[in-house]
């Protein structure tokens, strides 16, 4: 495994829709200022935002950690929340347990996990009902030395 260059963690507050998106915004600025090339940056920001929104929508709290190596960027999300009973089902496009309020706000259309999968090179979801969910996403960086 490539050597770790940078690790930064951010707290995400569950149910705080007003602040939703701030963490992915910060991550974007860090990666952009580091000159990560456009295609990878685009995918990273989308994955970070979807991950952040999942925590905001369903969990009590969570942390999003960005780990950067020479070769890839990794996002680790760990939340305290209800967990996902059937992960396979959660990956189906359009499947969602979002409330009507969430949908009114433009979220919860069941595209979160599918979108994350589409935009990452590796995606792993582990969950324990009643405890929380952990998501690991890896996005390869194109050679941009």
């Amino acid at each position, binding site marked *: 495994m490539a050597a770790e*260059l*940078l690790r930064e963690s951010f707290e995400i507050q569950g149910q705080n829709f007003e602040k939703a*998106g701030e963490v*992915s*915004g910060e991550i*974007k600025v*860090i990666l*952009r*200022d*580091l*000159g*990560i*090339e*456009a*295609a990878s*940056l*685009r995918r990273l*920001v*989308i994955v*970070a*935002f*979807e991950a952040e929104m999942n925590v905001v929508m369903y969990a009590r709290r969570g942390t999003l950690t960005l780990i*950067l190596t*020479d070769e890839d960027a990794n996002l680790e999300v760990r939340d305290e929340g209800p967990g996902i009973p059937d992960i396979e089902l959660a990956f189906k496009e359009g499947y969602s347990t979002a409330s009507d309020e969430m949908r009114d706000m*433009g979220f919860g259309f069941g595209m979160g996990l599918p*979108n994350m999968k589409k935009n990452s090179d590796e995606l792993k979801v582990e969950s324990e009902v009643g405890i929380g969910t952990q998501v690991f996403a890896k996005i390869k*960086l194109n050679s*941009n*030395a």
Partner: protein
Amino acid sequence: MPELKHGFKIDADKCNGRMNCMRSCPTHAIRVKNGKARLIIELCIDCGSCLGLCPTGAISATTITFAELDRFKFKVAVASPALFTQFGLKDTPAQVGRALLDLGFDAVWEYSVDIELIDRAIMDCVKSWPGPFPLISNSCPVIVRLIQVAYPSMVEQLIPVEAPREIAGRELRRRYSQELGLNPEEIAAIYITPCQAKTISILQPAEEAKSYLDGAVGISQVYNDILSKMRKVTSNEVTPKGLVGTGELLYWGSPEGEFPELSREHYLPLTGLTDVIKVFDDIEKGKIRNIEFLECHACPGGCIGGNLTVENLYVARSKNLHLLANMPKPALEFEKEVERRYAVEDFSLRGSVKPRRIEGEVVDLRERVTRKKRADELLKALPVLNCGLCGAPTCKSHAEDAAAKRADLNDCVFLSPHRIDVLRNLYKK
């Protein structure tokens, strides 16, 4: 990459280091060291926020002068529709066009045709675009440069269609060289511009192709002359001079395009950098869905709010509404010309827009991460009051400059109190 050019210059002799420019710059592209402002050219997006703010007038737009036009045999004005909003309620676009002829232009191009053509090309492009959405308009050069510098992941969303002023330049050169038997190089296509940013899009187009225009003259540069020429014309009668366009068709084409075929839900018009940035932040996260096309202008109020306009934005807007309300139905001639040209011309963008590399070219990712960590560390020693006395707009930018060894961290007056005396001497008048 060739050296970046900009639509304005800072006159070091006139600059007395008041820092207004540095504080207003949205991309933190200006530093003031030893009492003189200096530009970090890779960061500048030509928004012109600094232009009107300099108390000593040291920053000026690089537009061209009439003397520079003398080398051309036939000079054609392509006037931004914003020009017609700058005069009295009774002054018609045709009169303004006539005044441009009196000023020495040999023709005033019927630019509304090109605007209509590009509106159509944009709609066709939006309809057949496979994604990603939303597509973003590219006619404002500042928006294009903002994306290159601050939203590199969104460059592919810039609509790959030429700006209307470019295809105007192409067509007028073709037409007049044919009709007058002139060499295309003997014809000048001059844009009458509401902002200095259009100059840079002519000098150095972001898509790395050559502009079809030869230069830009600011509205404020010709304002007085147009006004005096117009007042001398007693009759409203406009006499066409042979082939020369006289501006009867100038009514069509508001400063902001209109896309009636795109539904309101799928089309967002945005003006003002602050608001554009808010929306771009949301787009980058994938938060904005169901929007197909964003029409973005960096100036609040769009081009009629450009920094080379003369009239107050709100008065200009009211004039524009007046023009639109009194707009005659499009002449058959106008529609025929649009149909004719739409069938034969290609409006797709030549070249492509790429993200602008800032430091990426010089150092590798590892070194960039090291610098970032060093900057984070150095920032802890700074007060985060963003006083600017070190010559950088924020403590964060000062820490970054120091981490990249472009500045000395000790320029901070909180770290080196004696710097207050240095500054006192420097600014003593």
